[in-house]
């Protein structure tokens, strides 16, 4: 029988190609009302009064006082209002909704509403913020001792900017109220997160709220927490109007006002002894959380856990805080704190190497983590670390070291460069979230006919869960994946198997499905309807303690090496990518083509993060690049084919040996790109994105 990794045609392929797949904006709801959001025009203000014009019949305004339950969106800290009609903390903050049957009239009403603000003093720069949403600190070894013993100190600071998910399908939900029950339909990653938010906002019983995911046109984390806000809003609106309410964001709105990747300031201080050996590292990270906490505490945790990257450094201190500023709340985006820190550590190590007279790889190689080593937080790299094997493969396919040397000494107007990054990504939810909060549960429903349906709440947003989940169950049962049913989750029908985030779906939920399928196989009764339920079992790890920030933060790790080759036109500083080579260890792939898709897509998103995706705020708290014209993501002409190799490293925690893969592939491109520019020009990159504007300044100042 074929190995599970053998590629199959995706289960949802046909409907997506022939245009019949229905995304939320494609679905017509009878008698639905359009909803448009009135947004704050101030970065920090108290709302004194809102003047609402007289409304025609059938038109509504939905505000804070219409929220029957708690006017707070249920995300970790509960600090973000569903409708912010008392005070506002960022330009674009939703104040209220206007609903009505005619969109033109709705917009006209919106334009007639006047808000009286009493302005405060906003804080935009994370360095100026005095308010933290969260902070953590951890140590390993004896940093104070290392500082005393050190002969040389290399200290520097990095900045990484915003990144916008730029999914092709904008955010949008439809809320409906019928027979005392509220239903919310739309594009989302986590139906149960949305359910929790709606239940809290409405104060309803659990069985009076139903959430249904519709075909989702990309998420990348951007639809992890934000739909909880939209969901609460449309639910309250539908409850008030007793009609379906359609809230679909337009691109400019989505781009300017929904959550983005946290900008970061990363301070690295490395301590060296008399033999130029690294004996300690002191790291301080600030993340810009924007106006509300959202998932920032977990992003910070992951950023801190990645701060030392793939290196075993004897004495470390890592501390960080995520601060509040009067800018758009930042949230989840593929990588989730990892891309920021990996850029920091990889670039810092390259700079240390330069100072000591080594190539970056010559230095990095000395400190690679090995199987069985302790992690930074007193956990263990229990499963095989295959960095050496991966490095060999990377050299083989890219000829990295030879080119690195060659390009370092080349002159001329067109300068070639090659760079490498080595990185990891912890699989699954950080810390003990899986055990303490998520408590995932899946069900397999076997109909009398023998047809099997997967009941789980994980969503396909393009990454292929509708196919890979089916493959896992089919393989365990010796069946054809086409005979397994897996539909877009409906909370009325499926248990909470946890959110589709943190690279957990295949490894954690897939494992539950594998176990459930094996149990079904064992207990199979022909002609009888059967339900098998499988609950999450926490693996035997060194227990994670969040207060001490100690233990196994992740059950396993996936690894990557990226090589990026560039050519820089030194007249214009325009940089072309001429080659991308990647090696990944994700356990084993559940489907080779789907895995290839994750690699290609993630790597190019990482490239955008490193090169062209520039997003900045102006002096009054407005995003400057708020359209798809001005926020630059790569086009087909800006990318090259990626040459990839997988290194198999099956891990028994995942189904058939699979580990987490969804985020890993984005993490490494940016530092490899930065390293390539350093190789080409002999400059020191200290920020992302490395724009032509930055490169030009570096060339001129050389």
């Amino acid at each position: 029988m074929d190995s599970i990794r053998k590629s199959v045609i995706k289960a949802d392929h046909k409907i997506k190609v022939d245009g019949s797949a229905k995304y939320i904006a494609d679905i017509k709801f009878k008698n639905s009302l359009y909803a448009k959001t009135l947004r704050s025009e101030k970065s920090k203000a108290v709302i004194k009064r809102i003047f609402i014009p007289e409304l025609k019949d059938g038109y509504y305004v939905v505000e804070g006082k219409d929220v029957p339950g708690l006017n707070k969106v249920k995300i970790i800290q509960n600090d973000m209002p569903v409708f912010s009609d008392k005070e506002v903390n960022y330009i674009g903050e939703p104040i209220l909704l206007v609903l009505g049957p005619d969109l033109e009239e709705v917009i006209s009403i919106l334009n007639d509403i006047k808000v009286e603000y009493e302005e405060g003093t906003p804080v935009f720069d994370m360095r100026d913020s005095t308010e933290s949403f969260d902070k953590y600190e951890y140590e390993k070894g004896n940093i104070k001792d290392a500082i005393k013993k050190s002969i040389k100190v290399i200290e520097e600071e990095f900045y990484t900017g915003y990144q916008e998910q730029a999914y092709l399908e904008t955010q949008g939900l439809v809320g409906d109220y019928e027979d005392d029950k509220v239903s919310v339909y739309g594009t989302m990653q986590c139906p149960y997160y949305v359910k929790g938010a709606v239940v809290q906002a409405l104060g309803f019983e659990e069985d009076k709220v139903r959430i249904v995911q519709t075909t989702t046109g990309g998420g990348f984390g951007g639809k992890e927490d934000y739909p909880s806000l939209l969901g609460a809003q449309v639910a309250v609106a539908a409850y008030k109007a007793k009609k379906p309410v359609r809230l679909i964001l337009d691109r400019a709105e989505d781009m300017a006002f929904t959550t983005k990747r946290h900008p970061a300031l990363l301070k690295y201080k490395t301590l060296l002894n008399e033999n130029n050996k690294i004996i300690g590292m002191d790291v301080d990270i600030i993340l810009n959380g924007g106006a509300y906490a959202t998932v920032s505490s977990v992003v910070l945790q992951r950023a801190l856990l990645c701060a030392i990257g793939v290196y075993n450094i004897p004495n470390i201190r890592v501390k960080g805080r995520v601060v509040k500023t009067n800018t758009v709340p930042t949230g989840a985006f593929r990588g989730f704190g990892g891309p920021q820190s990996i850029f920091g550590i990889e670039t810092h190590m390259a700079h240390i190497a330069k100072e000591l007279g080594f190539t970056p790889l010559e230095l990095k190689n000395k400190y690679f983590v090995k199987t069985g080593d302790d992690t930074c937080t007193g956990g263990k790299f229990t499963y095989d670390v295959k960095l050496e094997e991966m490095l060999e493969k990377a050299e083989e396919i890219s000829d990295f070291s030879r080119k690195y040397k060659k390009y370092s000494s080349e002159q001329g107007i067109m300068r070639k460069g090659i760079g490498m990054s080595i990185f990891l990504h912890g699989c699954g939810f950080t810390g003990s979230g899986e055990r303490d909060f998520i408590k995932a549960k899946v069900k397999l429903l076997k109909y009398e006919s023998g047809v099997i349906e997967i009941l789980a709440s994980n969503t396909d947003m393009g990454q292929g869960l509708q196919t890979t989940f089916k493959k896992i169950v089919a393989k365990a049962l010796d069946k054809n994946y086409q005979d397994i049913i897996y539909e877009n989750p409906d909370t009325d029908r499926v248990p909470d198997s946890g959110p589709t985030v943190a690279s957990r779906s295949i490894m954690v939920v897939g494992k539950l499905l594998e176990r459930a399928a094996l149990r079904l196989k064992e207990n199979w009764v022909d002609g009888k309807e059967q339900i098998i339920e499988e609950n999450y079992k926490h693996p035997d790890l060194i227990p994670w303690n969040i207060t001490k920030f100690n233990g196994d933060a992740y059950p396993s790790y996936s690894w990557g090496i990226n090589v990026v080759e560039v050519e820089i036109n030194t007249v214009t500083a325009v940089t072309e990518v001429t080659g991308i080579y990647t090696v990944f260890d994700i356990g084993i792939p559940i489907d080779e083509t789907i895995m290839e898709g994750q690699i290609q897509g993630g790597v190019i998103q990482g490239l955008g993060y490193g090169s062209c995706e520039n997003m900045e705020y102006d002096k009054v708290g407005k995003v400057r690049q708020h359209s798809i014209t001005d926020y630059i993501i790569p086009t087909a002409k800006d990318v090259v084919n990626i040459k990839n190799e997988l290194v198999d490293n099956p891990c028994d925690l995942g189904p058939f040996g699979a580990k987490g893969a969804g985020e890993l592939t984005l993490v490494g491109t940016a530092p490899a790109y930065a390293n390539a520019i350093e190789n080409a020009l002999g400059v020191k990159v200290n920020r992302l994105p490395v724009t032509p504007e930055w490169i030009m300044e570096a060339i001129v100042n050389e």
Partner: protein
Amino acid sequence: MSNTITLKINNKTIATEESSAKRLLDFLREDLDITGPKEGCGEGECGACAVIIDKELINSCLVTIGSVQGKEIITVEGLKGTKQFGVLERCFAEAGAVQCGFCTPGMIMAAHALLSKIPRPTEDDVRNGISGNLCRCTGYNMIINAILMASKRGDGLW
């Protein structure tokens, strides 16, 4: 000046009293329930709304129905069922060119428009051909592979 606008969409002739200024994209999606073309940005940048008008790839969010009277308009729904679509569908499947699918109808139209002009494109031709179609999931390369595959498999069709 007549207020009736006549359009030829997916080989059907349709008359409407809608305003000349109505966007073709809205007419397709709202009036005809043709939802293959998508609203990704509304400013002609993302290509998710792409259709083919008189054999040319056009962003339907940037044309009024008044400006395309009498022209042959094809959406992915109209292409479906043709031999060329069959080849494209198979190749997109094998090459793993579809992830979330939102850009896919536009990509299919761009592919068809390209192959209709250049039946045996180079990789550069394909990159140019889809340069106005943004994709965030795939990183483009697997879509390019799919189109190159289709040009070989569909020898003689375009």
